[in-house]
């Protein structure tokens, strides 16, 4: 049984169906990619999984238990951790204190007494942002802040990592290092579910990929299978053989979201 099962989740905002009958899984030791154009419902899926958004219907199972109605913090305690597309770093605190807070929380009331700075430094080192440790989190570059959010997750040793566009803001070499980090984390036994726009990264590191469009999963499979799928090519990947053309997805987004809203 997979660690995370998303079963037929539907989310409606007023007349807009953001997610429609989404069904996918994520499992230990695997990196699962969730891709699709902007507004396809990827972040909404993350919100449903972590409990920030209650689904209109459908269920989420984590570790064999139904967590659809479980509080946000309880799901985290069971081993879920996520990063955010729109950054949620604690801007008033230093980078080190951001991670320290995460460790305090993960340690429960026992952890309130004493938190080990060794583990904090280890997490910062692992994602490669030790040099920023003493800086305020609202003064570091976006890419670094994303890595900070990852470090904050890692320090609690979660079973499932949900990463929402983790590589945006990273340059090429940083992205490569980040891909290696993901593979290493998966090999240690973590399940990773990742929303990502960098297709090179997705195709390189992911074991499974699910493609969302208009809130529906239009294709699931290995990178090779997804790449070969006609619908995906038509909707999304077809025009993106090079980096430049990927950027053309932005105008496509605008035109594709509007009919979804009016319906």
């Amino acid at each position, binding site marked *: 049984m997979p660690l995370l099962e998303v079963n037929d989740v539907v989310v409606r905002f007023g007349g807009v169906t953001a997610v429609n009958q989404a069904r996918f899984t994520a499992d230990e030791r695997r990196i699962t990619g969730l891709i699709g154009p902007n507004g396809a419902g990827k972040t909404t899926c993350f919100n449903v999984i972590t409990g920030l958004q209650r689904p209109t219907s459908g269920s989420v199972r984590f570790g064999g238990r139904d967590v659809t109605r479980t509080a946000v913090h309880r799901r985290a305690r069971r081993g879920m951790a996520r990063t955010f597309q729109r950054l949620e770093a*604690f801007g008033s605190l*230093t980078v080190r204190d951001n991670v320290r807070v995460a460790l*305090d*929380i993960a340690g429960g009331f026992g952890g309130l007494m004493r938190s080990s700075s060794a583990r904090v430094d280890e997490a910062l080192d692992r994602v490669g942002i030790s040099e920023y440790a003493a800086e305020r989190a609202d003064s570091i570059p976006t890419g670094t802040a994303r890595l900070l959010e990852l470090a904050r997750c890692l320090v609690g040793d979660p079973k499932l990592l949900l990463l929402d566009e983790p590589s945006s*803001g990273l340059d090429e070499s940083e992205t490569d290092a980040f891909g290696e980090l993901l593979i290493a984390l998966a090999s240690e036994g973590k399940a990773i579910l990742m929303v990502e726009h960098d297709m090179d990264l997705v195709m390189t590191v992911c074991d499974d990929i699910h493609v969302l469009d208009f809130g529906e999963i239009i294709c699931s499979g290995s990178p090779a299978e997804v790449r070969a799928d006609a619908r995906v090519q038509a909707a999304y990947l077809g025009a993106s053989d090079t980096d430049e053309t990927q950027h053309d997805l932005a105008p496509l987004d605008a035109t594709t979201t509007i009919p979804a809203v009016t319906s």
Partner: protein
Amino acid sequence: MSGFFAFVVLGVFTGAAYAIAASGLVLTYATTRVFNIAHGAFGMVLAFAFWDFSVRQGLPTWLSLVLVLGVVAPAIGWFIQRFVTRGLGDAPVSVSLVVTVGLLVGLIGVAQYLWPPEARILMPFRPETGYQVGSTYVTAHQLITIVCSVLVATLLYLLLNRTRVGTAMRASVDNPELLQLFGGRPDRVAQLAWAIGISLAALGGILLAPVVGLDYYALTLLVINAYAAAMLGRLKSLPLTFAGAMALGILESLAVGYLPTDGFIAGIRPVIPALFLFLLLVLLPQAQLRIGQVKGIVSAPVPSLLRAAISGVVLLLVVIVVTTGMSEANLLLVGTAATFAMVMLSLVLLTGYGGHVSLAQLTFAGVGALTYSKLAEPNLYGLVLTTLIAAGVGALVALPVLRLTGLYLALATLAFGVLMDKMIFQEEWAFGYNGTLPADRLSVLGVKIESTSGYVLVMVVFLVLMSLAVLALRRGVVGRLLVAMRDSPSACGTLGLDQRWFRVGLFALSAGLAGLAGALFAGLRGTIGAADFQFFNSLPLLLLAVVFGITSVTGACLGGVGLMLLPELQANNPELAGLFFVVLGFGAVALGRDPNGLANQLFRLGRWVRGQAEPWIRERIPVWAPNLADDEELEPVGLDLIGEPLPAPRAAGDLVAEEETSHATP
């Protein structure tokens, strides 16, 4: 039976007026996410303006109405949206609340300044006309009000459902970003909503003024009825808001008719709206965590404990020097300043670090003072007991609304403040109706502190100790968590923090500190009454705390002095009394977006002076140089008050802006 009918008619009349005001509140909140605490204050000012046009200047009633509702009110609404509240909907609730509380206080100041206190009467519409319905006499004014509310409901329905801009308004309730994507103009929509909202506030105020009287505070606080009505519609649904207003109006009217006129039950009548509001808040569903907030709000530096302790000793010495030979009256003022500083410290913890707003912090001080005055021989144990009781009351306020956040929690404190003001504090076993209670001076370790100067010093010692405690908390795990919760509740949640109990604990701690301050104040004054802790005064307290810096101990201390001076200045310059409120209110509006306040400017100045002075000193007194250099090296992050503890914060919104550009090319 006819009596019953008469009360229902009266209830429908007040309900109709509430409905008009409340629908304006809902319109502005739903379209711009800014909860306008000052909604009633706008109604009040505009009712005064109507009086000015129709009575003082003698314009015809219809012309005055057209001028107020059609010109002045919409212009004010447009102006406020354009220059004050724009973009506030995305700011943390603590900021938007402070700004609108600033508007409230500022508007009261404006009214007092433009229309100084004197007897004014606003006659009801067509006072001589009325209709006999069965055995009940319905006045034309009542009928007009009811017709107005039906008209407002109909016009709002048509606007929202039958016009393009109305559709855009409804869309912006759900998702302003999507509206923009469609080519809609959220700013236009927001301006229109505010223009209509303020007009409705004005209409409500004008219709109620003949009944309530042209009173700055009564008309302003009538808005609590509107809050309560709007809450039934969860601040979104206009039909439910109308239903809530009617229910509340009739309930109030029936209470006047059928509740006993004395005893405990009688005290319920004036607090029905507050109870109604509190009850609805308790019944609200679990709040969802918001994501994508502006971050990095707290930027006041945190001094090392040694440094803070030295500052405390210096403060104590200064007070000793200043108070030597001081008159009794001035000593009382110093003690009062210390009290306010302590209450503001409790806000530093709650609002500055924690990001929650309490609109009734003085009420908690009142609970402390009440408990203290009941002590036979007040000593340190008694003080601890007092603190614990106030903390318990604070937890009791936060507990029923455990599941709520931000705005709703603040409104719960507001309902609590009104409840205590109009009911509990007035009870026989409490201060009594307009009564006072004697309070003994505190005994410390068996020594009773009789002299006022000695007592003031003891208060300052408490202030210093409390400051050190707050700073110690800030530096530790709890402080980190508080700031983290303030910056991103959703991140804390997804990291596994159960914020509900933490919040209750924070409220309790903050209320406890305020209670302790109130207790010490009771001992200082000797006699104490409900008037010392009026709910309304919690609002200037909050504002001054924000203006001087609600994120630092220094800000709280300066704010305490400021709040002590405010009534003094008003009493000495009665003709300018309103102006002080104007300055304070609009000062808070201007500074509200940066809760670090004036204190932070002082810290910056200090850093600058030090940066300028250091090379100069080194040049001339070489012996010092190594010391200073060592100092620099030894400074770990966050350990210094005026040194360079935390990197300078960036302007709010920077992160978001940068993030958005990075997403332009997905």
